[in-house]
């Protein structure tokens, strides 16, 4: 048995018939071919699969594609506007916020959420906002720097 879903992914409407058990992460990766979202633990502990679902950061390894029917999803592929990187992407690049890069898409989506909640976050607020995401390479310090950088950058852009 398959069920129809309509999910707007990075602005593009995706209509597919899917198995009821298909996870949103599988929908994004295997059906839409958007492999920037990674699977790390399948239990919503590591946050590598974090995407924005109707504007909220969620771990899409524990969301069914069917549950996302009618929703809007933003993945890492939807962060940059053409050649212009999102401030969070810029921050990760400038501050060496990534090494192997595997947790990075999820980390950046969590970073986007942090900045929406706290446009001028303290380091403690950033730490708290990243509690749901595991990184095994960086030791987090450069990721915190990266989100601080993004906050400054977004602040400047907003002021213009």
């Amino acid at each position, binding site marked *: 048995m398959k069920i129809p879903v309509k999910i707007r992914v990075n602005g593009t409407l995706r209509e597919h018939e899917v198995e009821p058990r298909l996870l949103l992460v599988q929908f994004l990766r295997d059906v839409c071919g958007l492999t920037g979202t*990674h699977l*790390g633990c399948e239990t919503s502990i590591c946050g590598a699969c974090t995407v924005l679902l109707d504007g909220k950061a969620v771990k899409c390894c524990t969301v069914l594609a069917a549950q996302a029917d009618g929703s809007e999803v933003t993945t890492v592929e939807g962060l940059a506007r053409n050649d212009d990187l999102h401030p969070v992407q810029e921050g990760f690049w400038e501050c060496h916020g990534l090494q*192997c890069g595997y947790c990075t898409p999820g980390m950046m989506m969590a970073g986007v959420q942090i900045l929406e909640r706290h446009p001028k976050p303290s380091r403690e607020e950033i*730490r708290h906002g*990243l509690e749901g995401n595991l990184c*095994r390479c960086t*030791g987090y310090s*450069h990721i915190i720097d990266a989100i601080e950088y993004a906050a400054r950058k977004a602040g400047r852009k907003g002021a213009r």
Partner: protein
Amino acid sequence: MPAPAKPKPKGYVGRPMKRVEDPRLIRGAATYVDDLNLPGLLHAAFLRSPHAHARVKAIRTQAAQAFPGVVAVLTGADLNDRLGPIPCAAPMPDQNSPRHTVLAGDRAYFVGHPVAVVVARDRTVAHDALDLIEVDYQPLPAVIDPEKALRKDSPLTHPELGSNVAYRWSLAGGDVEGEFARADRVIGVRLLNQRLTAMAIEPRGCVASWHAGEGSLTLWSSTQVPHLVRTLLPDLVHVPENKVRIVAPEVGGGFGSKLNLYAEEVLVSHLAIRLNAPVKWIETRSENAAVTVHGRDQIGDYQVAVTKDGTVLALKAHVVADLGSYLQLLTPAIPTLTGLMICGCYKIKAVRMDVTAVHTNKMATDAYRGAGRPEAAYAIERLMDLVAVELGLDPLAVRRKNFPKPGEFPFQTATGLLYDSGNYQAALKKALAMAGWEELLERREGARRQGSLFGIGVSTYVEICALGPSKIMSAGGWEWGCVRIEISGKVTVITGATPHGQGQETSFAQIAADRLGVPIEDVVVYRGDTNVAPYGRDTYGSRATALGGTAIVMSIDKIIAKAKILAAALLQAKPRQIGFDAGKFFVQGKRKTALDWKRLAGEAYIAKNLPPGLEPGLEASSFFEPPNCTFPFGTHIVAVEIDRDTGQVRIAKYVAVDDCGNQVNPLLVEGQVQGGIAHSIGQALFEQTVYDENGQLLTGEFMDYAMPRAGDIPDYLLGSTVTPSPSNPLGVKGIGEAGTIGATPAIANAVIDALSPLGVKHLDLPLTPENVWRAITNPGATPPVASKGVPKPDRAAPPATGTRGAPRKGGKR
């Protein structure tokens, strides 16, 4: 925080440059192994033993085979005689270990041991079909505790071996018994290095593709070591080496756990050949926790012989190392690295270490970030603190007393190593200044007056990197690199070192751009594909920059020498008259007629004006064989506060001064240090791989294996000293594991220092809230420290287990 300002370097080397590999990664456009999709791709899944030790009496696969979408179901009976066995590259003399078959045969030896493999057209179908395989297991007694495994009445992990002992190994140097007899005091402690799991966020996985027409195989694998896999895999799957291509695409973290050849890589390769179709296998997280190698897992009884002024004369240790059930690639070698580095950065005249390595019904241990050296650093740095405590001395003074002087390098250790260069005093001095040592002592005194638990810990570590000269390695310790000036003048660099997140696509471009005198934008670094980089020994043991970087330097120097001959012909001069500077070749004194790389490359490939005997092209490759390993070092200082009610440890201050020789890219160095310390915070405070008494893995998911999160990480004060290595022309040492080696003992020493007013002298890792809380509530039950020797006339020997609450006299700490 950034390191203090240094003189601005002229070229790219030495500058904190952002990485060239990042754009693809931050855009979600990089290709990890699970992102690969090939036409007709099949998917493999493994049925794994739920028992630590069991007889496999029968396997019924018919229902699984009949399941729609299933292509094949195979068991050990089908495959074990045709494939493998899985090799160990570092067996010890008199090694007593089993043949490591690709699937379980008539016995399963650990939880997760693969028993059968299913191949299906869809990944979920493959996993569904696993449930249809019926296995009759007869559970057998499991060997779990490595010390109990040595008892005569213990069950056997592998009954056919007759013993659970895999090997015994000893390392000895100097007159150990003589020094112990001469000592004023012998101080002993039993130290555990708990089992850990690397837990790279990307699990393992591979895709194999068989090209039937050519009879060639391509394996994409999430591995640190595609070249080692290419050396080892061909014989196991019966394809000639020169028809095997291994590609490590983007690799999502390794930390030693992907420095291996795994059964799944062999099986997936075989399945692709057997079924004449591409096959993919992606590890689940619970598989990763159970069947990707674990690390550490040593129990050591350590003793040091000291004089009353704190001079460490000799060290004796007996270590029981838990190897797990099978040997993986380097399993037996890891405890020997502990032995080689057990003297740390101290002049200890005599050493003896005996290792008893044991098989148990658990996953194999093998390399995990630091691989044997964190165990050594933890032991010697705990011992130095205990020497200070037992003798009533300042732990800094004890360390300084035993350091070799800067003029004593290269320094020969009693374990037979030659430390290449060092200045341990300078790193300690700088770290103390950065930490504000005197203020920190006052802060501790103030906290203690108020009844707070505040402690300071120091670790002065040294480690061994850039492994290493081929004579000490099992399969070549060199590294390979190639540089090509393309006809357009662009530069292609190919490294055999296979970086996977460490950033050498950037740092090698910095090295090449400087040496060639070209803009860094003109340089591209390729890695990770054995058809592009035909030879290499890959990334582990913090070796890539010291060895791989040098192979690139050597190749560039060959190209420059050739280009001078070509430039001389074009400029109608003699080669010795040709100068080279900033990417230009010129007759000395006549820079106006200089030739750049683009012009020379055009001439080299068009090849109409070459001098007689000069080959066309501008390309060179090199193997760098290092004369010695490198020995990075440093000082870490940690202050902790402990919540008396919960046992929670909070890191109040963290200072690290690391010396990895010259730094190619300080930003990347900082990233490696911070990442390394995070693994140490994990080992010191949270992480432990736990099997229950039946051999069930209790830490089989991220839910149960506590790794540091952002909230657990302090803001660091990081600094460095620079003592170049004489072992390579770049003067670099390696920094990938330093944080993981230097930090664990500093954190442990700080926690135990905080608990010392309660009489706690030692506490085993990890220092979880529960562990610390139990020590606070019942300090008498904490592990004992043995102290034997001639009591000094002015005071009695401290008790073996103490309730010593009075502040020490004379000690500065």
